[in-house]
């Protein structure tokens, strides 16, 4: 199941954060990189607390840190920019 979070942060090129819950293994790497954006829920899966909390750079770093590529980033034109 894919959980989508709309990002409306001013000046950001990222419009959507998607967490693929089937891929997420709860390794918590994303939280270590961007604790203001991500947390683990009761099922030990990553969820987005605040899609506008941080910079594009930190979001990309958090997505890249995921060992299962469970975090997908989409830009304003609808193009997937990671992975």
């Amino acid at each position: 199941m894919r959980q989508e979070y709309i990002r409306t942060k001013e000046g950001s090129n990222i419009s959507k954060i998607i967490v693929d819950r089937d891929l997420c293994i709860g390794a918590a790497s994303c939280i270590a990189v961007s604790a203001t954006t991500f947390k683990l829920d009761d099922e030990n899966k990553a969820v987005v607390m605040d899609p506008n909390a941080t910079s594009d750079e930190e979001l990309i770093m958090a997505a890249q840190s995921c060992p299962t590529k469970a975090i997908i980033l989409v830009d304003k034109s609808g193009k997937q920019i990671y992975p």
Partner: protein
Amino acid sequence: MPDQGDNPCRQIGETNLSMKKFKYLIIGGGVSGTTAAETVRQNDKNGSIAIVSEEPYPAYSRVMLSKHDFYLPEGENKIWLKTPDWYIKENIELIAGKIAVNLDHNKKIITLNGGEEIEYDKLLIATGSCARKWIIPGSDKKNIFALRNLDDAKAIRDKMQTAKKAVAIGGGFVSFEMCHILRQFNIDTTLVLRESYYWEPVLSEDEAAVVEEVLEKNGVKILKNSEAGEVIGGESVEGVVLKNETKIDCDMIILGIGVVCSLDWLKSPGLDVNKGILTNEYLETNIPDVWASGDAAEFNDLILEERVQLGNWLNAQQQGRIAGLNMAGKKEPFRLVSSYSTGGFGISICFVGDVGPGTDRIMISRGTKEAKSWARLIIKDGEIIGATMINRTPELSLISKLISTDFKISGHEKNLTDPDFDLKKLII
């Protein structure tokens, strides 16, 4: 192996490596080395880059090797971090299936196991760690596995198709995850622990009790204070005899007895080495133009204010990024509270920061037996430097924050031991 594009691994035989030169040479094709190469390429579009990798594969997620999904049909397709054509597209040469055997830092030359020499301008050593050797009578029999790389995982997967009984040796993340997988495949599993409880002394006894309960509830037999004395069988393992003479029948053994860095090939040239390769906070070694990252690096941790060596995915990945930036000419310190979390049998286990035991550390536990939820905060010089958590992963980000901000615990001890106290109140 992902099949998109041309396979860069074919370059091994096709490329004439007799004295090649690369601007950036990376030893190690795991997440740290690959992230470093990717970061270098983002910052230097034209500099030549090569990765020497012991394994004949493009980069994959080592974390996935101890996850149930890998052991399912088609599971191997889920592990790849890079496709073969990624290396070609990024103009990164993957020299796969080769091992570095010598470093001559004066001449800036790495020698590979086939005798090939590669010259470099800038070198990163990201060779990871390997499984500690298990040497007891009979330990050379077939179907004894240490899970460190893809070939190990494939061999375990193949054996699991027919195995009826398994013995796991040692506590730790991988043992826990593999016990979970073995039970999901309905394989009788006995866990042999030398210690008096699971993962002693890294976990507290209370934390270990939660882990042991779910293991036993799900059919894993745990033998504590027990040590294997001999492996019995013919060519293949047929059982283990403990030092107390208990015999356990099994047709496979999975080892979780720790890892070591194999750095013997680096000892002669004057590179400062302890358990890992010593680096400063920029991941620079004592030798100019040589960096180290990931499990192999024993680095100056700016947050913990000590030299540490960490063997987790996030540390390796993020250090690869910093090493890559610095090799490409930046001067970025590595600053991260790293963590690793896993789940199985319905519980979560999470480590953050430095969880290594030491006489200079005191422990504060917060949790309850009833809730089966514990965190153990590790304190050094009045500050939190790490924590282990069982079923308390939601506190990860708060504890990370307390570690990274050098929070002084003095006067807050009572709150920290109260499992219902909201740690957020301590964060300004």
